[in-house]
């Protein structure tokens, strides 16, 4: 019984053991399989990595026999993958390079340490015999005691093609710029030379090393840079520049150059537009200038030389027709008159040619003075009276505003009017009237000369102001014109910054006109408002689409002594700029749907408003500042909304008068003129003063404008200065207060003042310090 039990127990134990063993084996096999699986995966992964690579991967033994290649290699060299295995790696390079490659592999083999050879250029050979550029690098791989070489090959056909194209285009660019007879350079925002053509080197006798990477200041020297610096600043601010400059060449000869700078912006796809450098093109115009001088001298000499024989001819004909040489038969008289008239016309022609040359070449200096227009027109009409009478034409003058003046050279303007008048008279039908009118339009004065002549034919309109361009030779020549009158008139009007034109209806007559800016005296000082600080109330345009804020800003500025106009949108701004000139402008960056920055850019590109001080007042001033700075659009200041009145006024004063003139204004309430004078003498250097001798005057002053400080005497003829403190406390912002009073007047401690000084105990220095401290608050 016990034996049976024992056997059963042993059997059971064996079975358990067997089951356990089987379980163990099974787990081992599972582990093993998982391991192998992982191994395969890893190998697959690494293969898929090399297979997926665009670069070719070639594995060789240490003799250079190919063991494995990835798909890219095969494709690159035009083989089926397996075809390459077993070949020598030098089969992939042209025969002429094979020896070199074999040698390289030998040298790899002889190295004992691991190595990594950097990429080098080589030539690949495809199965079909074609060659292509590659870059190849080598490493070795150690596997236990074995060693393999790995080559990584990259097809650089595309890259090389691009490089070649780039090189070719650069070479081409060089060839072009080098063969141009101008100095060409590209200079970066740090004012360093990045590019220059050969003429540049040749001209200054420099080597490329002496120019490349050097600053303009280094290359041209301090003296020349003094002239160039401002122009460079201008182009780097985004404005194209053109100017003339004399520059010594390598022989030390001074040559004349026309220099042009063109800004270069960063790539348009980058967000912020900014200037990254500029192109400089300098053309030697010495020879042109010499030729121009020669031309002028020639014209001048010819006109003089022609004049000499003409003097004899004109004189002789004049004497004959004047009967000095005895009486002539009537037929001879008319012939002599013909000769004499044509002689005079020839003389006018010579005068006009000389005139036209001088005006156009800018050699005539214009003496510009405020010129009363009515008197000038009346004079010109009187001078042409005889001519008008000859043609049986009457000239009438209509001037509404007798006092209107223009800023011009009276003699030259007279010449313009005479030219227009004589044309009008010549082409008028007999017994008709030529009307001369003066109109005022938006700051411009327009002078019109209207005739009832045949009008200007359509085909002639475009040429009418050109030289020698009479409408019809048989027509104007018959009228005795030189063909230069309108061309001269145009040249003069343009020199006076005006414009000239005409309207005409064939058969009905013509109106020729010119327009010049009206001359206005600078406004007389406005005693009531701003006598102390500005001489004239500076005019500010507030550009703000929110009407309430615009009104608020206007009120703040008006109280500070500015004259204010409001514009609500960009179109409004443009309109206002035509109507009046401004000393400064505030701009909100968000103008309804429009962009304040675009507006500022537009203003900066207009010659008239390029230098107009602009203060940005905006809820997004900081954001705008970043945007604007990157565009190098200069503005005077930035103010954040909500608006701080003090900041606004200070900032506009600084913008209008420059930092130095943004001086604080002090109201001194004091009935003793001596004390007034002393206080002003002490603080004159940093502040301006307004005085009030009574409480009533002080209240009036405070109601009119804003002060930066009130200096207050307490004993005033019409009450105690303390009564004014309550008025000050009501002001927004409340100006700082310094009480400066006699010691017999009691000032309560509780009074809200920055300082309380007693006259008898206060030195001038202490008063000065108290005022400055209060102003700094």
């Amino acid at each position, binding site marked *: 019984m016990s034996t049976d039990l024992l056997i059963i127990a042993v059997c059971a134990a064996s079975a358990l053991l067997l089951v356990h063993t089987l379980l163990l084996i099974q787990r081992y096999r599972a582990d093993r399989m998982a391991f192998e699986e992982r191994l395969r995966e890893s190998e697959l992964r690494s293969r898929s990595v090399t297979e997926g690579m665009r670069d070719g991967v070639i594995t060789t033994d240490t003799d250079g026999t190919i063991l494995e290649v990835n798909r890219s290699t095969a494709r690159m060299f035009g083989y089926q993958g397996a075809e390459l295995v077993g070949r020598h790696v030098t089969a992939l390079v042209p025969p002429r390079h094979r020896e070199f490659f074999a040698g390289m592999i030998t040298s790899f083999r002889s190295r004992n340490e691991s190595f990594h050879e950097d990429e080098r250029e080589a030539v690949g050979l495809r199965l079909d015999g074609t060659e292509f550029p590659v870059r190849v690098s080598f490493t070795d791989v150690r596997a236990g005691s074995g060693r393999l070489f790995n080559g990584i090959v990259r097809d650089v056909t595309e890259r090389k093609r691009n490089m070649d194209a780039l090189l070719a285009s650069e070479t081409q660019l060089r060839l072009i710029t080098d063969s141009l007879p101008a100095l060409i350079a590209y200079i970066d925002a740090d004012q360093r030379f990045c590019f220059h053509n050969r003429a540049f080197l040749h001209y200054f006798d420099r080597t490329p090393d002496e120019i490349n990477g050097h600053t303009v200041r280094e290359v041209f020297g301090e003296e020349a840079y003094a002239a160039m610096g401002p122009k460079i600043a201008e182009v780097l601010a985004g404005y194209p520049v053109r100017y003339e400059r004399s520059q010594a060449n390598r022989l030390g000869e001074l040559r004349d150059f026309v220099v042009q700078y063109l800004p270069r912006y960063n790539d348009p796809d980058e967000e912020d537009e900014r200037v990254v450098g500029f192109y400089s093109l300098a053309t030697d115009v010495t020879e042109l200038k010499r030729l121009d001088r020669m031309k002028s001298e020639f014209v001048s000499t010819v006109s*003089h030389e022609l004049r000499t024989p003409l*003097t004899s001819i004109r*004189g002789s004909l004049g004497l004959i027709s004047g009967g000095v040489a005895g009486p002539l038969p009537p037929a001879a008289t008319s012939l002599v008159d013909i000769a004499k008239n044509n002689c005079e016309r020839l003389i006018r022609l010579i005068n006009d040619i000389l005139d036209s040359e001088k005006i156009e070449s800018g050699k005539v200096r214009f003496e510009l003075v405020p010129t009363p227009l009515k008197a000038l027109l009346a004079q010109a009409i009187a001078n042409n009276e005889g001519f008008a009478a000859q043609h049986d034409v009457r000239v009438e003058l209509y001037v509404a505003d007798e006092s209107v003046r223009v800023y011009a050279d009276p003699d030259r303007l007279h010449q313009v009017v005479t030219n227009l008048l004589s044309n009008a008279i010549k082409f008028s039908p007999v017994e008709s009237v030529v009307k001369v009118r003066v109109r005022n339009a938006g700051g411009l004065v327009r002078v019109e000369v209207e005739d009832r002549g045949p009008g200007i034919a359509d085909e002639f309109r475009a040429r009418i102001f050109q030289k020698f361009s009479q409408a019809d030779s048989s027509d104007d020549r018959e009228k005795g014109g030189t063909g230069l009158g309108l061309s001269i008139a145009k040249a003069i009007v343009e020199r006076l910054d005006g414009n000239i034109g005409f309207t005409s209806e064939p058969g009905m007559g013509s109106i020729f006109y010119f327009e010049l800016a009206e001359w206005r005296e600078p406004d007389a000082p406005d005693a009531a408002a701003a006598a102390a600080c500005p001489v004239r109330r500076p005019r500010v345009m507030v550009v703000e689409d929110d009407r309430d804020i615009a009104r608020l800003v206007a009120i703040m500025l008006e109280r500070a002594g500015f004259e204010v106009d409001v514009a609500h949108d960009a179109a409004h701004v443009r309109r206002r700029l035509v109507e009046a000139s401004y000393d400064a402008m505030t701009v909100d960056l968000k103008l309804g749907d429009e962009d304040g920055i675009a507006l500022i850019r537009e203003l900066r590109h207009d010659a008239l408003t390029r230098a107009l001080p602009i203060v940005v007042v905006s809820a997004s001033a900081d954001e705008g500042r970043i945007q604007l700075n990157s565009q190098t659009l200069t503005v005077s200041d930035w103010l954040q909304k909500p608006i701080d009145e003090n900041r606004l006024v200070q900032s506009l004063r600084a913008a209008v008068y420059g930092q130095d003139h943004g001086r604080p204004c002090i109201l001194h309430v004091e009935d003793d003129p001596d004390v007034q004078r002393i206080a002003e003498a002490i603080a004159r250097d940093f502040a301006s003063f307004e005085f009030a001798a009574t409480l009533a005057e002080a209240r009036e002053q405070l109601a009119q404008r804003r002060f930066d400080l009130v200096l207050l005497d307490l004993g005033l003829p019409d009450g105690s200065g303390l009564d004014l403190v309550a008025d000050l406390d009501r002001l927004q912002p409340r100006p700082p207060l310094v009480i400066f009073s006699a010691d017999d007047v009691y000032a309560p401690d509780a009074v809200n003042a920055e300082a309380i000084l007693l006259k008898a105990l206060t030195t001038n220095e202490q008063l000065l310090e108290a005022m400055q401290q209060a102003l700094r608050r």
Partner: protein
Amino acid sequence: LPRPLARILYVEDERDIRTVARMALEKVGGFAVHACSSGREALVAAATAAPDLLLLDVMMPGLDGPSTLAALRMIEATAATPVIFMTAKVQAAEMAYYRSLGALDVIPKPFDPMELSEQIRRIWAAQP
């Protein structure tokens, strides 16, 4: 008042102009005219003939108008003789320059022979 103008010393290198102007001055203006063809000749004539007025061409070979004027001013007999220039250089700046040399005025060429004498009389009457 300046004394009446009667005797004019006229200096001009161009013969034809000299002929025409002389005729204009004598026949139209009724002046007594002594004509010279160069500045040098004029210096001698001016010192001896004591004219009331010199009418002086500007552009002449040798001594030109301005040099002749300068030389006249250094000779006692002619130091105060009034001078009028005649010139074909008629640009405003040129005319102003010749006036600034101490001439009464400048008459541009070509001139109107029937007007020339009247023009000279006006200038003569206007002198300070």
